[in-house]
C-alpha cells in the first residue's frame, strides 16, 4: 500500500533522514518508534509532502508521490494526523470535518457524521462546539475524525499519545484498533512502547534518521537490546 525507498531529507543543511525505507501493507498497523528528534515526524512529513525528500521514492498504491503537493497526496487517499493536532479553533466540530471532507473512494470505508459520532461519542454530542473550546482529548479525537472524512485508505498518525492523559491514550488505542478492523491501514509514530505494543502489528525503529530495526511487534518485545539501545527504555 505505502512504500518508502531510500528517503533522504534535509532541513537547511541538516541531514535529517538517511536511507529510510519502510512499508505498510493493506489493513496493517505499523509503528515507527524512536526518540525525540530521531526523524519520526520528518518521515511522516516527507510522506505527505510537507517536507520534500531530496532523494528516494515514496509509492502509494502504485503511484509515485514524493514530488507531489500535499493536497494531491491527500486526494489519493492518504490521511495525515499531525503531532500538534492543529485543529481549526475558530471552526465548529462540523466545520472542521467539512474541511477534511472528500468524495467517497472505491474500496475503502466511507465516513460521514453519523459514523464519526459512533466512533467518537464525545464528538457526537458537540457538533456546534468551536474547536478552541474543546479539551485536549476531544481535540485529539477531532483531528483524527477530520482526517477520516477524507475517506483515507491509509492514515499517518504522528504521536497520538504524546502529551495527553493516560485515560485518553486508552481511547486512542481503542479507536486505532477499530479503524484497523474496518480495513484502514495505519502508520503510527510513537515513543511509547507500551502503547505501540497494544495496537501495532509490525515496528520500525528510527534513530538519527536511519532505520535501525525492523520486525514484528513480538520480535521487538523479545529484543531487549534493541529496546535499550534505540529507545532508551
Amino acid at each position, binding site marked *: 500500500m505505502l512504500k518508502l525507498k531510500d528517503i533522504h531529507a534535509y532541513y537547511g543543511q541538516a541531514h535529517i533522514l538517511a536511507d529510510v525505507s519502510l512499508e505498510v501493507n493493506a489493513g496493517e498497523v505499523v509503528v515507527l518508534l524512536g526518540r525525540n528528534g530521531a526523524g519520526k515526524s520528518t518521515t511522516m512529513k516527507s510522506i*505527505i509532502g510537507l517536507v520534500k525528500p531530496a532523494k528516494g521514492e515514496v509509492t502509494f498504491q502504485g503511484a509515485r508521490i514524493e514530488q507531489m503537493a500535499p*493536497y494531491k497526496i491527500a*486526494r489519493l487517499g492518504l490521511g495525515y494526523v499531525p503531532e500538534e493536532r492543529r485543529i*481549526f*479553533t*475558530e471552526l465548529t466540530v462540523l466545520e472542521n470535518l467539512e*474541511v477534511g471532507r472528500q468524495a467517497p473512494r472505491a474500496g475503502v470505508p466511507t465516513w460521514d457524521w453519523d459514523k464519526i459520532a459512533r466512533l467518537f461519542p464525545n464528538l457526537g454530542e458537540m457538533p456546534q462546539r468551536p474547536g478552541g473550546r474543546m479539551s485536549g482529548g476531544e481535540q485529539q479525537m477531532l483531528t483524527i475524525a477530520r482526517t477520516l472524512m*477524507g475517506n483515507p485508505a491509509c492514515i499517518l498518525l504522528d504521536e497520538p499519545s504524546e502529551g495527553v492523559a493516560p485515560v485518553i491514550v486508552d481511547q486512542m488505542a481503542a479507536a486505532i484498533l477499530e479503524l484497523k478492523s474496518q480495513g484502514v491501514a495505519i502508520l503510527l509514530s510513537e515513543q511509547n512502547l507500551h502503547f505501540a505494543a497494544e495496537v501495532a502489528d509490525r515496528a520500525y525503529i528510527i534513530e538519527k534518521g536511519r532505520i535501525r530495526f525492523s520486525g514484528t511487534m513480538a520480535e521487538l518485545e523479545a529484543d531487549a537490546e534493541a529496546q535499550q539501545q534505540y529507545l532508551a527504555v
Partner: protein
Amino acid sequence: MSVDALLVQFLNGLAGASTLFLLAVGLSLIFGVTRIVNFAHGSFYMLGIYIAYSLTARIGGSVLGFWGSVVLAALAVGLLGVIVECLLLRRIYRAPELFQLLATFALVLIARDAALAIWGPEDLLGPRAPGLKGAVEILGRQFPQYDLALIFIGPAVLGALWWMLTRTRFGVLIRAATEDREMVGALGVNQAWLFTAVFGLGTLLAGLGGALQGPREPANLGLDLMGIGDAFVVVVVGGMGSIPGAFLAALIIAEIKALCIAIGTVHVFGFDFSFSKLTLVVEFLVMAVVLIWKPLGLLGKPSAASRNSSAVEAPLAPPDKAAKIFGYAVLVLLLLLPVVGQMFPYAVVLMIDILVAVLFAASLHFIMGPGGMHSFGHAAYFGLGAYGAGLLMKQFSMPMEAALGLGPLLAAAGALLFGWFCVRLSGVYLAMLTLAFAQIVWSIAFQWDEVTGGSNGIIGLWPAEWLNQKAAYYYLTLALTVGGVLFLWRVLLAPFGYALRAGRDSPLRADAIGINVFNYQWMAFVLAGTVCGVAGSLFAFSKGTIAPDVIHVGRSIDGLVMVLLGGVQTLAGPVVGAALFTWLQDAVAREFQYWRAALGVAILLLVMVFPLGVAGSVKRLLRRREVAA
C-alpha cells in the same frame, strides 16, 4: 449647528463608510488567509477608478452601461490580482513577512508608473451615474442620490461576504486557511488555488471600491498611498482579518469624520479651533485610541504564530579582524573623497545624502532587527530632528551649531511619548501605530502655518560659516554618522542590546528571568529616535530647506526598503542597504522618467535573488566558503 445638518452629515458618514469598507475589506480578507500584508492594495483601488473611468467614457451613458462598467472594472482588477498572485506572490509565501511587504511595495511603484504611462498625470473625473445624477430632499436639504445608493451597497457586500464565509464550503475553507493553511493543504485542499481565489476576490473588492468612487472623486496618481493608508487604518482598527470588524471600523471613522465637518470651527477660550481641519488626521487619532485600548483592534483575535517567520538568526559576534580592516579601509576612502573627488563636486553632495540615509537606516534597524519592532513611521523622528533644528534656529535664533546639537532632542521627546504607546503593541499593529503617529506629526507640520511654515516649510537653514564649504559639511556628516552607527553597534553588543534581543526572541523567557521587556523596548525606541533625529538635523542643514515631505510616509517606506535591502539580520545590513538605495534612486531618477517602476522591478529582483538582503546574502556566501574550505 442644527439637528437637520447633523442628520445629513450622518448620512454622508454612512456613504463614506461604504466607500471605506469596500476599500479595506479585501485587504483584511487577503491578510487573513495568506498572511500577506498587501501594500499594493491601494494601487488596485486606484486602478479600479482609472479603469472604470475609461470604460464609462465609452459605454457609461446608459444605466446598464454605467453599472456594467463598474462591474467590468472590478472584474478586471480582480483578474490583475490573480495574475500578480500567480506570477509573484506564489514565490514568496514562505519568505519572511517583511520581504513580502517589500515585494508588494515594489508593486505599488510599478502600478503608479503604469497608470502614469496609460492615463497621464492629470486628474480625471468620471461621469456621474445615469439615473442617479440628481439629489433627493431630506429634511429640507439636498442629498445626492448616488450617495444614497452607496449607503446600501456597503452593507449588501458585507452581507454577501458573511453569507459566503459561513454558509459555503469555500467560506469554511477560507476560515480554516486563515488559521492554518498548511493543514488545509494536508487535508486535500489545493491551497494554491484557494490563495489565488482569495487574492482575486480581495483585489476585486478593491477594484469595486475604486470603480464606485469614480463619480465622486477624480482618478489621480496619489490615490494608491492615500488608499492604502486608509485601508490599513480601517483593517487595523477593526482587527486584522475580521470582516465585520472592517465594517464597524469604517463606520466609526467615517462618522467621526462627518461629525468633524458638521461641527466646523468652534471658539473656545478665545481661540478658533477648526474641527474640519482635523479630518486629515482623524482616522489616525481614532486608530491610536483604539489600539491603546484594544491592542488587537475592535474585533481582532490573536493569530496563530506565523509558521514562516524569518530564518533563525545566528548569534551576534563582534567584528572579526577582516571585517575591521575592511571597515578602516572604507573609512580611509571616505576621508579621502573630498580630496580625490574635487573633479566631481557632485560626489560629495551625493555622499552627504548617502551618509544621512545610512544614519537614518541604522537607527531604524536598531529597533526593527534586534528590537523586533517594525516601524512604519520612522520618518517622524527624522522630521522632528529636522524641524527641531530648523525651529531652534529660526524661532529661537540659535546659532546653527546649537540648533544641530539640540534639534534631535525634539525627536527624542517624540520617541519618548510615541514609543510609550507603540511598544505596548506588536507586529502589524505596532507598525500601524508608528505610522499613525508619523501621520499626526506630518499633519501638524503641514497645518501649523504660524510655526512650521505649513506646506512651504522652513527656508534659509544654512550651516555656520566654517561649515559652509560642502567638504566641511561632509566631514561633519561623516563624523556624526560614523560615530552614531558605531555607538548603536556598541550598544547592541552590550548587555542592553542583548536584553533587547532577549525580549524579541522570547518575551516569556525574558520576563521569567527578571527582564522588563517594555522598558528595554521603550528605551531602544528613544535611542533610535534620537539618533534618527541627528540624521534629520544633518539633513536640514545640508538642504537649507525643510518641508513636511521630510515626514511623509514615503520616507518611512524608503527606510524600510533600505534596511530590508541590506538585510535585517546583520549589523552592516542597513549601511549597505541605505548606500545602495540612495545611490540607485539618484542614478535612476536622473536618467529615466519611469524610475519608480524601474526601482520596483529592481526590488522585486532583489527579493527573489537575495532573500536575506544584500549584506545577509554576502555574509552567508562567505560562511559557505569557509565551511567548504
